[in-house]
């Protein structure tokens, strides 16, 4: 069934978009990630302008992280104080993200920057995850206890000033790395149309030593808040959020996520992590190929975006 999108200004097959939302939702439920890094490229691939795709997926992430955060809230596994600190940084990062997004669109370099960021971050994180989980599985098979990774205590983090106590996470650390992480994820998430959970979760665990029980819930609250701010800012300064497209993706996404979560509970943790790593790596490689091979059509058209500030 064809449906005309008012902002993207083209008709799409409603069931195809719904299916995309559901498929990505399934994977996000399975792996416990937002799935924005899959959904944005899929939309661009199906003919929606990158600017509209990025901004619209931002609002879809609000819906999927809201339903996730709600579940963790019921289980009381959210560190609200930590989430608030991350969110404060996230909002700042989002503002920068929208500004840079607009600037890059004006000078016509948005696509290549998005491509490069996907290659660097997805490629890097995907590679790390695959290597980590393969090493873990090999260690288990060899019956040698997994080498207790000598975590160098990250003394530089603990030496930073402005220490804050986070009771829920049993942490007493400086606010600087938390805010910095929030800024970074907010900036990147807004620019790339992703939630950034796949960067946030490892960072919280390995860098800040947040207990795994509260990591996902806390990161979901941060993503929810950041992406909500990003949606409003994108709508306000770029007019590129398509609410009709967003609604179809949201409904597909939240339904798919439920089934994904059910399947995910039956798989082993390290297997899931290896699969997710491969998936992230694959998307990164796909973007790398697009950047490197000779394009069939070297020309591209874009409407003139005035350089004036919003």
């Amino acid at each position, binding site marked *: 069934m*064809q449906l*005309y999108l*008012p902002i993207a200004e083209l008709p799409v097959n409603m069931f195809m978009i719904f299916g995309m939302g559901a498929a990505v939702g399934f994977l996000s439920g399975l792996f416990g990630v937002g799935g924005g890094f899959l959904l944005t490229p899929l939309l661009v691939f199906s003919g929606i302008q990158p600017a509209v795709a990025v901004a619209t997926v931002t609002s879809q992430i609000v*819906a999927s992280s809201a339903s996730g*955060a709600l579940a963790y809230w019921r289980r009381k596994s959210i560190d609200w104080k930590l989430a608030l600190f991350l969110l404060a940084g996230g909002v700042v990062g989002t503002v920068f993200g929208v500004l840079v997004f607009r600037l890059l669109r004006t000078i016509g370099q948005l696509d290549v920057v998005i491509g490069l960021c996907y290659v660097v971050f997805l490629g890097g994180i995907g590679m790390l995850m695959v290597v980590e989980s393969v090493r873990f599985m090999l260690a288990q098979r060899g019956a040698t206890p997994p080498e207790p990774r000598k975590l160098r205590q990250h003394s530089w983090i603990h030496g930073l000033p402005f220490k804050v106590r986070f009771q829920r996470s049993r942490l007493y650390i400086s606010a600087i790395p938390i805010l910095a992480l929030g800024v970074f994820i907010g900036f990147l998430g807004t620019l790339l149309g992703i939630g950034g959970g796949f960067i946030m979760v490892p960072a919280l665990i390995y860098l800040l030593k947040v207990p795994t029980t509260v990591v996902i819930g806390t990161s979901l609250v941060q993503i929810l808040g950041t992406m909500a701010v990003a949606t409003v800012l994108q709508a306000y300064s770029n007019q590129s*959020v398509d609410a009709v497209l967003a609604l179809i993706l949201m409904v597909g996404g939240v339904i798919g996520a439920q089934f994904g979560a059910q399947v995910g509970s039956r798989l082993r943790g390290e297997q899931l992590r290896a699969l997710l790593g491969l998936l992230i790596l694959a998307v990164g490689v796909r973007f790398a190929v697009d950047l490197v091979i000779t394009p069939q059509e070297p*020309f*591209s*058209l874009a409407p003139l975006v005035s350089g004036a500030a919003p």
Partner: protein
Amino acid sequence: MRALQAAIVLAGAILACIPAARAETLVVATSTGTVNIASNFSGTDITVFGSIERDRATVSRASEYQIAVQVFGPGETVVTRRKQRGFGVWVNRDSRTYVDVPSFYAALTTGTIDQIGPPETLRRFQVGLEHLILPERSTGSPDDPAPGDPDFRAGFLRLKLHAGLYRELPGAVTFLSPTLFRATIPLPANVPVGQFRIQVGLFQEGVSLAQHTSAVVVSKTGFEQFMFDLAFTRPLLYGLGTVVLALLTGWFAGIIFRRD
């Protein structure tokens, strides 16, 4: 003296009228004056009917009439960029800005475009993609290609053709009788919104005998128009509304699929 002046003006006016009275005139009607884009829009057609009116004084001519129906969409300013390899990666480098070019263009003709007339005539009435005027503006950067760069023009036209927004349809104007003709203009699903100019030209032996211009408005209606207006005139409200919609969807899903 004044009477003489008046007489000269009158005589001049009569003289000026004579060729017009002797030539053909065009009477044109379009099937619709407005095209409405609703949620189920997936492209449409506009049919143009025309009649060649002749009076007794019209000299009968041996060769056939040629009709060109041209559709110009609302003007838009488009940046055309070319990718080049830099540090192993393909990056947009030089660009040309086409100013106020038609966002949509279609040329429907009775025969081929060459049959309409010589290149001068085609250029004058912008018949065919080859003769479309594309005003350019440079970004001022010294790296930019020279104005009128044929590669950029070809790239621009190729992308527009590929998107179905520029078309040449030779043979799409059909004569129902020696003086009555019809043309069906296909508008694709991604048609731009705004005022379209439909220019019908009557040619014979490479000479324009008559031109007629009419307008068709393409606009979104109802819900589509409402959403579009909201997004552009009340962007803050639109953004907040989208977030509320997302929160409600997420919350609702959380309730429906609650597993405990």
